[in-house]
């Protein structure tokens, strides 16, 4: 059963330079307890897609399409209903824990706040629950650490706090934005292990640059390029049988596989290339690629790709 289904989603930002098409037609779904990885170069719209799901965008943003969560279209419900879903049903672990924690509020209070809002616990019980959450993410001496401020935590510890905060109300879906970015290898492994453990019973949208992390944690992986998905399949399929030239390029740019970067730069989201958005950088480009925009086609069971060459 699909927990979340995104249909024809577009998220555009009007700016003085033109319309930024950060998400330009995404169709995807996440089933219960599934971990879905979203991978792509910087600026391709991953975070915007994550924020779109819980409508965490400024009011002049243009959003079209449907985001169906448990049968309800999140783009049609009221702001008050949306607020009840944020944190309680769908939690978001934002990119960059250092700037995402409020510097003047204690860590314990930042976690307890969500608990008080959604679970109608009193101050004391919420605080106790927050301490339990800190304990669950393996922060040593949690009852003392709860009274400390974010700047007193290391980068890895802040990430743990973000995870504790996201999971405090036991959401069904977690959107985790680059949870391992900027961490050194040992800490990264610990965070991956921790996330696997605490989200075992939950669905997750994992946004990451790190294919290693994605392969470790995900059931399915999608590659995003210039506001759209270009390929998605099970983890094994993506690694063993990649079809889209962008996916192949991405895999080749991994340290273990030659470190060959994809030539060229990702296009401006204001002025997208005609035809296939990847064609200016593609080594297999054909005449049709410049004229027609390829659709998503299912090549194999559950393996979708957007390419004329595949």
């Amino acid at each position, binding site marked *: 059963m699909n927990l979340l289904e995104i249909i024809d989603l577009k998220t555009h930002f009007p700016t003085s330079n033109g319309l930024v098409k950060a998400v330009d037609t995404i169709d995807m779904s996440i089933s219960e307890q599934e971990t879905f990885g979203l991978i792509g170069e910087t600026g391709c719209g991953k975070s915007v897609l994550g924020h779109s799901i819980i409508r965490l965008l400024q009011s002049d943003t243009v959003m079209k399409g449907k985001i169906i969560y448990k049968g309800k279209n999140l783009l049609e419900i009221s702001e008050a209903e949306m607020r009840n879903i944020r944190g309680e049903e769908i*939690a978001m672990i934002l990119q960059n824990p250092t700037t995402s924690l409020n510097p003047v509020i204690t860590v314990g209070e930042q976690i307890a706040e969500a608990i008080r*809002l959604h679970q109608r616990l009193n101050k004391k019980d919420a605080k106790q629950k927050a301490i339990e959450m800190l304990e669950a993410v393996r922060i040593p001496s949690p009852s003392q650490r709860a009274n400390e401020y974010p700047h007193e935590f290391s980068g890895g510890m802040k990430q743990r706090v973000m995870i504790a905060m996201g999971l405090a109300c036991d959401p069904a879906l977690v959107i985790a934005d680059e949870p391992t970015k900027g961490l050194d290898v040992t800490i990264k492994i610990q965070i991956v292990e921790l996330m696997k453990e605490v989200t075992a019973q939950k669905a997750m949208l994992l946004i990451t640059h790190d294919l290693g992390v994605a392969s470790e944690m995900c059931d399915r992986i999608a590659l995003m390029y210039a506001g759209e998905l270009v390929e998605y399949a099970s983890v094994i399929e993506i690694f063993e049988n990649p079809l889209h030239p962008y996916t192949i390029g991405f895999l080749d740019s991994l340290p273990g596989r030659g470190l060959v970067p994809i030539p060229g730069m990702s296009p401006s989201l204001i002025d997208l290339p005609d035809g296939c958005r990847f064609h200016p950088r593609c080594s297999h480009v054909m005449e049709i690629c410049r004229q027609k925009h390829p659709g998503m086609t299912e090549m194999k069971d559950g393996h979708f790709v957007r390419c004329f060459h595949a």
Partner: protein
Amino acid sequence: MLGYILKRIFQLIPALLLVSVASFSIIYFAPGDPAETLMTGPDGNVNPKSVEEFRTKMGLDKPLHIQYLIWLNNVVHGNFGYSYRTEKPVFDHIKTSFGATFKLAVVSLIISLIISIPLGIISAIKHNSGLDISCMVGASLGVSMPNFWLGLLLMLLFGIYLDWLPVAGYGTGGDLEHIILPALTLGTGSAAVTARLMRSSMLEVLGQDYILTARAKGVPEWMVIGKHALKNALIPFVTMVGLNFGYLLNGSVVVETIFGWPGIGRLIVDSINMRDYMMVQGCMVFVALLFVTVNLVVDISYRYLDPRIRYEKA
């Protein structure tokens, strides 16, 4: 924290000494002789004998550095000397005048905060809207309008046309009726500055990632603004407002003069005019002391508000 405060207080001593030396010498070299000015009779004639007597009595015949040391020694013992004019202790004059200035400063500050905090927040939330633009145009006008002009306008409107409030004066101990107009003049003037600061620090804070985190948790928007954003935006704001209050405490000569408010600003100007230098000297040191104290209090509250520097070893 206590260690930090003590250290800061200790650091104030050289600054205060410097201020006192500077004001002592400026006064000494300024034109006009206090003995002659004060001993001029109603007929405009100066009696050389009484001038001499006055000089000896006030110690003005001694060399400058001796005068200074005598004065300093007295100050250290809590004696700010005696006014040349009234022969009453300088400190008593300062106390009375400062009382009036303090009252005016507090009411002005309250007015300024009542105006600037909501205005700054609303402008930031609705930034670039018509409301925001009109608030900020109003603030620009407020900043550029000189106090004496605003004061006179208020005086004309409320004191003369509407006749709701007394035009000027101190009333009985600076009562509410008399304080409103001068406080409004000072308060709106400083609100124009602080509202803009509130707006810009609020705007900056609202763009931070932790605001997004709060929203992602399902925190209602009024709490995002009132708790998550305001707590951060107040840090630079408090510094600014504190310094502003420091200026208010030094007494606005212009406003005190227009409204006949017997505050410390007017005491200084009157004393300079009368060459009552003992009084000027006392006031200068008092004002300097006040200013550094306010600065220290601002610094301490800044540390209290911002946990990132609260625990730093001072």
